[in-house]
């Protein structure tokens, strides 16, 4: 009698059902994770597009060059070479190890195991070995970053800008990366028939401590937690400073190409002055704009708003800021964080009420104070430093425009300066007739 027993048939059936179920489950979480993430990204996109128009579509070649140098090449990061090197490891690790993610997703959906192994042949161990080496380097870099942030007294990380959520956010990111790398190495180390460069060393520990079944269980658990962890992390991005890994690219592309000293022109005012001087040029249907400068975050351009969402709160801007370095209230990093906070509250308001219902707050005054704005020397140090092409200065200047032109809110010395320029054509009270007096001195 060689007929299989009913028990065996039932067993095979059960296993097949379990496998199908896990494939289905995997497919569902993959779709949910990607769908959710895409929805949130589209939400951020529409929040950013609440900003005013910003023309940055010319000279595509120069713009792509910026993407290559600044975003992909992290050129600005290398102003601090050692940190840049560690950051580069984490970045390369992130990108390269994501190739492995393709295999994990394929395996999960197809119910296969290491589906790339056969087609890649001899390249396969080379790839996995590289992933493992990178995983160890990423692990080490993240531990050093945690130490830098929490133990070493580094001014830009001690800053009160980061009190509360932002400081935790930075630590969560590093801890999650450490956990993910550990899971990746664990699942390779507990797999019985493999021998990869790093995990093979851990293998002796695992095989001596656990039975075959236990190893199998650990491997499967590590595999599942790893992939679920990645999906969870992906969906954490939009709420975190870590969003810079995506937005650094468009932000580099749309970065202004003119010299940094150029302030954006206000055509509406240019025309007002022109029509006042040459009334014959004024069109009969000319309408004055509602307001000048930015009082609310949505008065800024979409590039300013994308800047806010690209900010990774590293604080290089604030460390370079002369006002911040001499104890003034201004911190360019905080300007960016406040702008993002304000946009988040506006977006939430819109989602809840279907349209924006005034909440009695504005970016200017409630999120960013006059004292902060007044301290800026427009020196461009913050803009120069930013690794992801953000201009905090642009936001400061737009808010200053609103303060002066909408609220006539200026220190009295500035009011004297304005009246001197208007009456004497110089910021000081000298007679314009004396402008060439120096030629008559000896």
């Amino acid at each position: 009698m060689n007929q299989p027993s009913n028990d065996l048939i039932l067993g095979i059936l059960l296993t097949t059902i379990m496998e199908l179920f896990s494939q289905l489950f995997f497919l569902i979480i993959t779709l949910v994770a990607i769908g959710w993430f895409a929805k949130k990204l589209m939400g951020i996109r529409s929040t950013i597009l609440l900003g005013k128009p910003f023309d940055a579509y010319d000279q595509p070649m120069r713009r792509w060059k910026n993407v290559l140098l600044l975003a992909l090449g992290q050129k600005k990061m290398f102003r601090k070479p050692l940190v840049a090197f560690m950051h580069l490891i984490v970045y390369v690790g992130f990108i390269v190890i994501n190739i492995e993610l393709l295999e994990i997703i394929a395996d999960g959906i197809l119910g296969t195991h290491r589906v790339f192994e056969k087609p890649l042949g001899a390249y396969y161990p080379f790839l996995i070995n590289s992933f493992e080496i990178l995983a160890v380097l990423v692990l080490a870099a993240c531990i050093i970053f945690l130490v830098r942030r929490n133990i070493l007294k580094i001014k830009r990380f001690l800053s009160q800008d980061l009190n509360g959520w932002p400081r935790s956010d930075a630590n969560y990111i590093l801890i999650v990366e450490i956990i993910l790398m550990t899971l990746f190495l664990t699942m390779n180390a507990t797999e019985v028939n493999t021998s990869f460069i790093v995990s093979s060393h851990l293998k002796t520990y695992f095989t001596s401590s656990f039975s075959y079944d236990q190893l199998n269980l650990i491997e499967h658990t590590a595999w599942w937690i790893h992939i679920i962890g990645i999906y969870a992390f992906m969906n954490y991005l939009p709420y975190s400073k870590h969003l810079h890994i995506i937005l650094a690219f468009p932000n580099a592309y749309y970065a202004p190409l003119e010299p940094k000293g150029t302030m954006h022109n206000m055509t509406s005012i240019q025309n007002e002055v022109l029509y006042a001087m040459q009334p014959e040029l004024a069109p009969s249907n000319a309408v004055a704009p509602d307001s000048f400068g930015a009082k609310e975050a949505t008065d800024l351009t979409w590039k300013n708003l994308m800047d806010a969402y690209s900010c990774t709160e590293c604080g290089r801007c604030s460390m370079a800021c002369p006002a911040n370095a001499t104890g003034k209230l201004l911190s360019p990093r905080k300007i960016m964080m406040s702008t993002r906070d304000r946009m988040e509250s506006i977006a939430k308001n819109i989602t809840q009420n279907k349209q924006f219902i005034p909440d009695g707050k504005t970016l200017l005054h409630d999120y960013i104070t006059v004292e902060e704005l007044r301290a800026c020397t427009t020196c461009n140090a913050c803009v120069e430093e930013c690794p992801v092409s953000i201009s905090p200065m642009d936001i400061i200047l737009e808010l200053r425009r609103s303060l002066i032109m909408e609220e006539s809110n200026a220190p009295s010395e500035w009011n004297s300066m304005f009246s001197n320029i208007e009456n004497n054509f110089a910021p000081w009270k000298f007679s314009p007739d004396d402008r060439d007096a120096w030629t008559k001195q000896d």
Partner: protein
Amino acid sequence: MKVNTMAEMMASGQTPDILFWVGCAGSFDQRAQKITKAFAFILEAAGINYAILGKEEACTGDPARRAGNEFMFQMMAYQNIQTLNGYGIQKIVTTCPHCFNTLKNEYPALGGNYDVIHHTQLLQELIESGKIKITDSNEWAGKTITYHDSCYLGRANGIYEAPRKVLESLSIELKEMKRCKSNGLCCGAGGAQMFKEEEKGDLRINTERANEAIETKANCVASACPFCNTMLTDGINNRTETTNTSVLDIAEIVAQAIQ
């Protein structure tokens, strides 16, 4: 000193090769007038056919614009562009990085298109072409100079080399401050800060910068902006310990070297 104005030149049917935009500080501030005169002396010595606008020059509007007063900026720009275009000006040199930045980068959008250079760029050109000659035994030879980058020349317009090349041609030792070039620390005057009290803080920005300049132990701090010059001079004078370090514009240093 006989300096032609555009009006005088036009009246006599002449056209200058370059317009010297003096700027408000250079015209009215007693300290900055010396920089203006030094630069005019060099132009004269190099045989440059130049003119000034004289009483027709007006503030470019830079401090008003950066303070937030776009109306005032546009009014000044309109007026200046009318004057400059009226005279058919093509090339401008200025001793003020703020005027330089506004004329070069901000007037084109308003219909004012000129070839604008900063005086350190012209000085470099004059030295390299041999129009002004500096001997190895000039007054500054062997001295140590540190150069303070003006934000509106450096970061704003990427001009780091011209002022350094000019100084190096004087056979001096150029000693950089801790923060220099694109890392340079602001003097504290930009963004219309020159015309108001600093906000409250632990320290004045010019004190911080003056300390960095003094640390280099240079004989002289070279500036390329009349506002930086004022701020650094004040910063050094406000220090408790006295030093012999002087603050001079590059034009003044060059003028002394060729006298």
